[in-house]
């Protein structure tokens, strides 16, 4: 099967999400930087990832971990300089690793010169770059996202004596996308980075760009107009570059962000992720198959982006109240693990550090339709620290080895940007890259193998999916097809061994070739195909007619 055209590289990508600050500190100041990240590219190449998604690295007061940007066209001095970024970019290119950067379109920091100018006077030329109001009653009823910290979407500005609109923290005023000058300036920002050579943008918080009275101020048609305009300019000027949407919405609402293939290339499938965790705990495929049934078809060049964990809390916005309660009880019994409407934990602790469950979840992540994202450190089973505030507990330094500062930095431990994980289970002496590289059966080695198998066939990135519904509901089975190629995936969501009978009559006469060991399984005959699976076991079978 031929690879996708180069312009569709994102469909076959395996993305690694990292904050530059967390990867490697090259200058001993306790904070990771671009020169350090560049030094770790060989590790990422060997892991098998094909793209890096960098979280915000721009100048910022860092009151929201860089999502409060005060300068869009520079690099925060903590992480190096623009030249350092260019060095990193070249190093990534030389290893055929694409680079996706983050762009926070919706809002800036209140320290951004644009906002400072805007608030300085109602007559300021940039006054209309933000959403101002004399009252805090406009857009009444619009939901508050950061429930734990914000009381309103309006904040009073004592300098200009008016309210400004903010969907996130009050120190992050929303830009006014009804103003053409704002749209033009944000395109200039994108152009700046595209000209340097970045391959795409993950656009943060896109549903909230435009506000209208009497609406939820989310997913408005006017927002889609803004996105279409950006996409058109991107295609005209930088073909082959990619836009990835962060829109934490239901699948039906998410669908609109693909437009007719003229908005985003990719969008995160937010509702799927919590349901994977739910299905695992329930030992029942229902949450997954239901959300797959509700997932609409998307234009051919588009792709879902799938993830198990990321830098934010495991968001439970896109679940029902009953499901949310269940998830809290099962995955966040300690209230300290909860934040906003979510659970601030890493993959391994969520799964009780159970290697079988970690493998199964990754197996599903890499075999369901979409481009998978690995959150840094999850490939070795890093832990978290719920005693760090906000979402910082899942943003601790990468654990490279069992030595000084986990091999992350030569600085004094006290000066690290965040404390290392030290406990006996997840501490850096127990969980680190160096030790896992030494053995063949570590999680890291297994992840490498998983990526190899995933990349052995484009069927995983571009194939269709068809769910099977065996009577045994603890087994999630689906068929992926691309051209003449077919792959059968069977997952046991249960902690106990299972037998399952699959209706494979459509494929009668084919033999099954298990893709990890390449062993042959019996030919499909007249009867339902009987498989037995150990606890949390999964199979990927290539179907072959021989």
């Amino acid at each position, binding site marked *: 099967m031929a690879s996708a055209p180069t312009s569709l590289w994102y469909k076959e990508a395996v993305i690694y999400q990292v904050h530059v600050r967390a990867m490697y500190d090259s200058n001993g100041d306790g904070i990771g930087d671009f020169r350090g990240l560049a030094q770790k590219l060989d590790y990422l190449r060997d892991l098998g990832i094909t793209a890096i998604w960098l979280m915000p690295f721009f100048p910022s007061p860092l009151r929201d971990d860089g999502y409060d940007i005060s300068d869009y066209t520079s690099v925060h001095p903590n992480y190096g300089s623009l030249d350092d970024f260019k060095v990193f970019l070249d190093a990534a290119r030389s290893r055929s690793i694409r680079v996706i950067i983050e762009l926070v379109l919706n809002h800036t920091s209140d320290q951004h010169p644009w906002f400072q100018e805007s608030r300085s006077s109602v007559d300021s030329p940039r006054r209309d770059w933000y959403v101002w109001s004399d009252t805090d009653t406009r857009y009444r009823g619009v939901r508050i996202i950061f429930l734990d910290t914000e009381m309103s979407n309006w904040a009073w500005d004592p300098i200009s004596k008016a309210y400004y609109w903010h969907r996130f923290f009050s120190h992050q005023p929303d830009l006014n996308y009804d103003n053409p000058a704002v749209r033009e300036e944000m395109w200039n920002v994108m152009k700046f980075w595209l000209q340097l050579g970045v391959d795409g943008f993950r656009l943060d918080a896109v549903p909230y760009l435009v506000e209208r009275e009497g609406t939820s101020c989310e997913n408005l048609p006017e927002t889609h107009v803004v996105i279409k305009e950006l996409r058109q300019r991107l295609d005209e000027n930088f073909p082959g570059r990619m836009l990835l949407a962060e829109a934490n919405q239901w699948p039906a609402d998410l669908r609109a962000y693909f437009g007719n293939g003229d908005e985003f290339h990719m969008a995160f499938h937010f509702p799927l992720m919590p349901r994977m965790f739910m299905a695992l705990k329930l030992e029942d495929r229902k949450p997954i198959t239901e959300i797959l049934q509700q997932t609409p078809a998307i234009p051919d060049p588009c792709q879902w982006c799938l993830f198990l964990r990321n830098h934010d809390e495991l968001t439970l916005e896109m679940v029902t109240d009953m499901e949310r309660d269940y998830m809290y009880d099962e995955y966040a019994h300690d209230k300290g693990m909860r934040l906003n409407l979510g659970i601030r934990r890493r993959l391994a602790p969520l799964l009780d550090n159970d290697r079988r469950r970690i493998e199964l979840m990754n197996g599903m992540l890499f075999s369901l339709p979409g481009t998978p994202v690995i959150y840094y450190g999850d490939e070795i089973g890093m832990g978290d620290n719920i005693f760090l505030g906000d979402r910082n507990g899942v943003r601790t330094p990468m654990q490279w080895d069992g030595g000084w500062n986990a091999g992350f930095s030569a600085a004094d431990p006290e000066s690290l940007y965040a404390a290392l994980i030290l406990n006996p289970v997840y501490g850096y002496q127990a969980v680190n890259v160096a030790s896992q590289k030494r053995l063949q059966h570590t999680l890291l080695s297994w992840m490498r193998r998983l990526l190899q198998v995933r990349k052995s066939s484009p069927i995983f990135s571009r194939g269709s999916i068809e769910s099977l*519904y065996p009577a045994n509901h603890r087994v999630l089975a689906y068929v992926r097809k691309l051209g003449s190629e077919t792959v059968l995936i069977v997952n046991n969501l249960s902690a106990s061994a299972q037998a399952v009978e699959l209706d494979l009559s459509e494929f009668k006469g084919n033999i099954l070739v298990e893709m990890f060991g390449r062993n042959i399984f019996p030919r499909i005959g007249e009867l339902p195909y009987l498989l037995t699976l150990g606890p949390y076991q999964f199979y990927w079978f290539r179907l072959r007619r021989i």
Partner: protein
Amino acid sequence: MADEDILSDDLLRQLMSVGEADILVGIHTHNNAKTIGQLVQIVREGLLKYFPRERVAILNVDGGSQDGTTDLVRAAAISDVRDATPFYALRTLHCISTKYNDVPSAGRAMHIVVAAADLLRAKACAIVAPESSEIQPDWMNRLLRPIYREHFDFVAPVYGRQRFDGMLVTNLMYPMIRAVYGKPIREPRPGEFGFSDRLVSELIGHELWTQDAGRIGPEVCFTVSALADDARIFQTFLGPKGHVDHQPADLVAALRQTVAPLFWSMDSTYASWNAINVVQTLPSDGPEYEVGMDPVHVDLTRLHQMFASGVVDLQDVLKSILSTSTLAQLQSVAALDETNFQYSDELWVKVVYEFAASYHRSVINRDHIVQALAPLYRGRAYAFLTENLNASKDDLAEHIEALCRTFERLKPYLLECWTAQEGGS
């Protein structure tokens, strides 16, 4: 261990798909298409409401329905294939159905439910009668919660009944079980009840399934087994129950389903009850007893005649069952006309106890013993009806309580009869 013969291959395949269950609800049907759809909907609603996170299965055991009963049960399943609107469930809710080849038998059906519960390792089970038109979603909570969450082993129902409904229960089963086993089980032959995995383990290999008593009256055997096992028992008030819907109009058939299993169970559990001489209270929710005051429509004269002629016609049979003294008293009562009729509690209790002892000793064919009780019960029913025709609810309750105390006071007499070397004295 489950009896492999009792489960068909098809059912085993379905159970394999269910896997392990937290809760299993068994429904025995035979041509119940008129009511089963609505009943299963309510059961499902109750399970989703009160046990939304648990692994739940509804097992319909059907005695060969020809009216589509089993299809209606299966249609209530909630899976990832079928749209479950308006219900929402976190996980799959299995509704499975199986048919057995024998003639319809409550015992056979219940044995299958118990075997399935054993295989599924269900922590709490409930049996629901298919014709329970009064069932409410909260019955699931009342029957299952005490077992699943509070570690009881057996949940017996209390129904609100009309004052003369279930007289066999109020005049024999309830007071006798209370006296013999020391626990006041209001409904010894329940249409609905709950039981634990521990009770399943006790019952799965029990001989009751191979006996007529167990085949015909498994509910009574089940109840008595729980009593004899010293299981933790809870009584729950379910609300009104229709007119003896599970009790056939044929009195002999009713006796075979109630008294025979009781006598049989007493026979096999003697060691557990012979020393009991106090009555414990049982933990419960809701009222212990509730009666309605609907008017009664019974042909009292015919009831009296059937009693009088029965005593005469069965004189030879009764001689081998009853003591000379008791028979003589009975014959005196039978000779009384309706105006002067008196059938004391004490005489009735002695009759019942002597029947139980004779059943134990198998003085004649056991089924003949059970049949012979029919006319004597009619006499008791006649007396009860005439004495309580104008009684208030409180008076009625007091009369039943007095009868219970008579059963308890005369328990030594039961033991005396039970241990006597030969029948008659």
